[in-house]
């Protein structure tokens, strides 16, 4: 079972990368309204059912993968 952890910076003050991408896109006439750049972590959990995989992933995310002061996260189950 694979779980994806999507992590995004909380507010735009922090997202210098997102802003840089926005301005590159603008310079090349590929504007978007907003671009946010964060992290994607894929956890291969082995033989767990969906529920236990999600709960273990949540534990891991909160243990170390994200910093609540500056980031928010979301989990997803990855279908093969």
């Amino acid at each position, binding site marked *: 079972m694979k779980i994806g952890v999507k992590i995004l*910076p909380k507010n735009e003050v*922090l997202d*210098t*990368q997102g802003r840089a991408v926005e301005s590159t896109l603008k310079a090349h006439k590929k504007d978007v309204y907003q671009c946010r750049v964060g*992290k994607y972590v894929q956890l291969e959990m082995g033989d767990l059912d969906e529920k236990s995989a999600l709960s273990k992933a949540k534990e891991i995310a909160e243990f*170390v993968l994200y*910093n609540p*002061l*500056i980031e928010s996260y979301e989990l997803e189950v990855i279908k093969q």
Partner: protein
Amino acid sequence: MKAKVGIVRFLGTNCDRDVYQAVADIDLRPEWLWFEDQFDPKEFSGFILPGGFSYGDYLRCGALAAKAPVMKSIHEAAGKGYPVLGICNGFQILCEAGLLPGALVRNEKRKFIDRWVELKPETQTKWSSKARAVIRLPIAHGEGRYYAEEADLQKLWDGDQVWMTYRENPNGSLQNIAGVTNKNKNVCGLMPHPERAMHEWMGGSDGRVIMESLLG
């Protein structure tokens, strides 16, 4: 007998030997503390978490190191009022470990910056009893931009917890913050590197102001 200063080494820490030398230079006794071990704070007069890419700065600077077993002892020492200093990556680790408020995020221009900067000490701490009006130290970081939510920033100023500010902001730090301290002023974090400014031949010796505060 000279007082022992504990220097914490994580996997990947790369300013460890420099801090070791700086402590020896002011005639104190540096001693390694390995990230997997724990220790009794009583044997030490202070602790330093050196700078430099623990765990490659992977995931988030300081995040992986903050979970190491040695941090339990650092927490304990901090709680008991021992002086604890985090330099650069050490500062990031202290923030990630919850020992200091705020976070250090990527520089505004997204590039690593190596440069000498001028700093203004804003308050006295256990690490700056002899501080002057302005000190000059080198910075070397890619993620040194201090961030805290607005209300928390106000609390920092109100609580006299802003330790040092940049005279000219190099990295986009909120309110020019270069270093902060905890409420008790024994735990301090600083982005610039005092250990790289210990002798005239290094280009300046203002780093002594900070290291020598351990001499009491």
